[in-house]
């Protein structure tokens, strides 16, 4: 297909698997902003976030077969790659001190929560609406785990809750959020539809 701009994400990955650089460029156009935003949020350092973006898209280029459109959207795949790599970096010894400093700085911010994190999402309205319906305990556990890069054990320590409770809240919170997102009209896995 000559018009890559109209191609589905899964179609782009097929083209990428055939070493079509323009297809990778189109995937970058669509998703690099989200990947960069998540990585920058986690690492709080632009240069590191840029490295993650580069790594994620080069990995897509080198191993397009790892993406299975039957498992979800390209966007969620790229973000999962980004998150995993960012968290690895975050948890490395060299990043520990920087992370502690960042956490201290954010703790001082007022009203910082998951809803603010997604405030300017393109789909912010219905996502914010869905998040607002989550129980506070689930919302906080997800925020600390996903956007804070903490393990559930660390989250349990931070919240003073049993580990089993926290891992259950993360799971149930994600399930509730999915239900709410569907209810408010968000399209999950939208490049599958």
């Amino acid at each position, binding site marked *: 297909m000559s018009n890559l701009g109209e191609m*589905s994400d899964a*179609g782009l*990955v*097929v*083209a990428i*698997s*055939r*070493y079509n*650089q323009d297809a990778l*460029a189109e995937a*970058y*156009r669509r998703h*690099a*902003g*989200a*990947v*960069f*935003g*998540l990585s920058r*949020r986690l690492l709080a350092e632009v240069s590191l976030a*840029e490295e993650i973006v580069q790594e994620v*898209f*080069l990995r897509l*280029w080198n191993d*397009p077969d790892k993406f*299975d*459109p*039957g*498992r*979800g*959207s390209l*966007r*969620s795949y790229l*973000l*999962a790659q980004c998150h*995993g790599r960012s968290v690895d970096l975050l948890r490395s010894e060299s990043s520990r001190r920087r992370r502690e400093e960042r956490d201290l700085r954010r703790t001082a911010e007022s009203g910082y929560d*998951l809803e603010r994190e*997604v405030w300017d*999402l*393109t*789909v912010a309205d219905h*996502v914010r609406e869905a998040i607002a319906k989550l129980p506070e305990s689930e919302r906080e556990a*997800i925020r600390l*785990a*996903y*956007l804070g*890069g903490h*393990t*559930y*054990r660390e989250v349990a320590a931070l919240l003073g809750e049993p580990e089993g409770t926290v*891992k*259950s809240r*993360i*799971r149930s919170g*994600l399930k509730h*959020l*999915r239900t709410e997102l569907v209810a408010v009209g968000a399209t*999950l896995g*939208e*490049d599958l539809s």
Partner: protein
Amino acid sequence: MSEFHDDFSDLLGAYALDAVEPDERDEIEAHLHTCPWCAAEVAEHREVAAFLSHSGTDAPAGVWDRIAAELSPAAPPMRLTLSPVGEADRPASPEAPALGRIGDRPPEPAAPEAGPIAPVTSLADRRSFRTRTLVAMASAAAVLVAALGFAAVDQAREAEQWRERATAPTTVPSNPDDLSVQLTGADDDMGATAVVTDSGRGYLVSHDLPTPGDDELYQLWGVVDGVVLSLGTFDDETDVVNFQIDPKRIDGVEAFAVSKERMPGVVVSEVAPVIAGEVA
């Protein structure tokens, strides 16, 4: 559900958010390979998590140029691992439904997601090269093979003529109108020549392929219009492998490859080809 499954199901949310310990992650990933229910749940969680990410950010300037600079300047060895062949990329011919691999795959809409558009330097002057991911279908998919215009045919007599006419193991006599592809491997000694006549009859003459193991054989793959199909299996004692291609689709032939597989062949090959070659 197994006890093991029950033990780990409560961790799936944390796992999807990369919030488990390394030892737990290893155990969960081993479990996911055998449990489609848990794998599906993790995929759902990640889809939800993607909504929590900050998508209102522009991609950083300059990063694309760094990525483009690292892209392979020449076609690497052909990939045999599978990749989906999408609806949007399928050939238009109704009698030739492209299939990436056997299994359910949802249709793909042609709707790019909303969101900020990252600046990307045109790649018009960065010539992209063509090679193909091989997505395999084996003899078990004979019906699909037939539907795609390929069929293994009994051409023993004609193949014998070809073999007799061959002047050397690597040389298949052909006229200029035939499609001829040289397949090469890591070992310079081994190789093959694939020839497809204008009638769609194909022949592969290989040489110096190592003897496969007791439970192994060679499998020939062809790529036509981006669709990768099994063209048959053979052993190292087979001089000429015969196959058939729809004459109307000869122009779409892009590559051939041979892989070593377990008997009786595979539906999806995930090993590197022993030899491969693209249409010049």
